[in-house]
């Protein structure tokens, strides 16, 4: 059986609507109008042990809500979920000891104390034996380069340093399943790469199952072979990332630097001309014919330089969402 099993999972919220202004406030004080928001709407998927899966979707798509249901923080309104054979919302101790939820926008570290103090509290809470604790801390230190950070008050750490400590605090009990909700939010590129490498290394060493949400497409591209795309609570893609790219964007971007002038009409037979200013030509060439086309072009024109690129993932995902909304 798969490690994470989600079947027709729904989570609906009742929110009350308020019109603007004092009049609206008064009206909503006496007679509230409620509206049902389907944050997650009949979503199903299965994840095997050791998989790294990226959750993609715009803000408010239902990614965080899904992770919260899987963590047992929210009761599902319909359908069911099971993680490692446990029903999350029962919040059994045996379950709570085996996973972790990292929320990039919320912190559990004690603000006024060095991070190591939060670690010690977590050690007591998770009842981690001294030997295991020391070994895990040593490994985390090695992977995240925590060193001197642990002894500095959390309020004096930079955002990136704090995130490293947050991650470590959430990993002390060696979780088998990791729910990472925007773990790299607000971090600079170097730190993002750092965190990404850590996630990949942890997955490799411990065979942990990971669900990752991120606004930074690079995180998902670098880590996840498989992605689940949700929008407005509905799942509409679950599968291999590369296949999705090939389906939505079945072309490569071919850039030519010419040494002689050419006009765009010269290139229309090879593919869609995106731009042509005489010396620089950008073409969208069907994927399977990309190399042949390039070879042919090299014989036809005086080419200084030629590059191939995959279309930017952001564009692809945007196309997916736009297609979905129509």
């Amino acid at each position, binding site marked *: 059986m798969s490690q994470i099993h989600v079947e027709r999972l729904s989570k609906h*919220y009742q929110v009350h609507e308020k019109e603007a202004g004092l009049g609206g406030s008064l009206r909503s004080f006496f007679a509230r109008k409620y509206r049902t928001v389907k944050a997650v709407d009949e979503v199903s998927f299965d994840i095997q042990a050791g998989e790294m899966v990226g959750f993609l979707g715009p803000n408010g798509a239902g990614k*965080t*809500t899904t992770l*919260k249901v899987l*963590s*047992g*923080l*929210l*009761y599902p309104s319909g359908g069911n979920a099971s993680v490692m054979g446990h029903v999350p919302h029962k*919040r059994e*101790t045996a379950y*709570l*000891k085996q996973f*972790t*939820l990292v*929320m990039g*926008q*919320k*912190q*559990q570290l*004690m603000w*006024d*104390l060095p991070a190591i*103090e939060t670690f*010690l*509290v977590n050690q*007591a*809470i*998770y*009842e981690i034996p001294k030997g295991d604790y020391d070994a895990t801390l040593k490994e985390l230190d090695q992977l995240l380069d925590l060193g001197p950070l642990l002894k500095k*008050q959390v309020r004096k750490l930079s955002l990136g340093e704090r995130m490293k400590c947050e991650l470590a605090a959430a990993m002390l009990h060696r979780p088998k399943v990791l729910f990472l*909700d925007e773990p790299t939010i607000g971090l600079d590129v170097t730190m993002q790469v750092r965190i990404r490498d850590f996630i990949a290394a942890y997955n490799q060493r411990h065979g942990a199952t990971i669900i990752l949400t991120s606004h930074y497409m690079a995180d998902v591209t670098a880590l996840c072979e498989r992605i689940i795309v949700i929008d407005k609570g509905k799942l509409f893609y679950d599968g291999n990332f590369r296949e999705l790219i090939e389906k939505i964007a079945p072309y490569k971007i071919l850039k030519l630097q010419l040494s002689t002038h050419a006009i765009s009409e010269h290139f229309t037979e090879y593919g869609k001309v995106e731009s042509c200013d005489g010396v620089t030509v950008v073409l969208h060439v069907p994927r399977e014919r990309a190399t042949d086309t390039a070879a042919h072009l090299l014989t036809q024109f005086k080419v200084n330089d030629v590059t191939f690129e995959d279309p930017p993932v952001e564009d692809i995902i945007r196309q997916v969402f736009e297609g979905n909304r129509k």
Partner: protein
Amino acid sequence: MVKYIKLLGVFIRASLLTELEYRANFIAQIFLGLLWAVVVWVSVLIFFAHTTTLGGWEYAQVLIVVGMFSLINGLIECMLAPNVKRLIEMVRLGTLDFVLLKPVSSQFMTTLRYTRFNGIGDFSAGVLTIIYAFGQMTYRPSLEAIVQFACVFLMACLTVYSIWVFIATASFWLVKVNNLTELFRSIYDTGRFPITTFQGGVRFFLTYVMPIAFITTFPAQAFLGKLDAATTLTSVAIAAITFIASNRFWNFAIRNYSSASS
């Protein structure tokens, strides 16, 4: 159980470290606590300048009630009040999620997580007052009285704790519970006088509705060897009922809690 006692130790240690980060504040708080305890003591002295007994209690005996009052007030200040404040913040910011993710009772984690040391003044003033009061009397408690006191006192602590859990839990709906804590404090203020000082409806209210009598008067009475078995048993029953009820209320609130926006 052993796990929870250990955890409480870890929590108190972390809290102490936090308080020590702000040295001046730490010292000022203890000083303020002591000052308040003196105020209570003086108010009793003023009473006895005009009379020799208060509700059938002599001066030294009343001092034991006063001592109990300060001592428990200190415990509230140290262990309970700071957590109610934090809980409100956690509900507002959504960080309560982290508590619910931990393999520990969420009620324990939220209501006893932070200790502050501003109540140490009250607490030690309470202990000193009780010692002083016994110095003024020829009476010495028997072993039986001490055991009975220990039992009633423990029940008093449990009752106070449970009442605070009720107040804290209300923060899920009210977001601001300052008014509730103030209300409790002003009712609790009556606990510095023996319950027999009050008449009729007020006495009934302070015994059975808001059981202040069981928190200060009855433990003091037990110490003085004057508490009957029925009242002792009632204190156990009241503690058990409020504790179970508060725990139910907490679990109900948690079930209804849907964390604030991500």
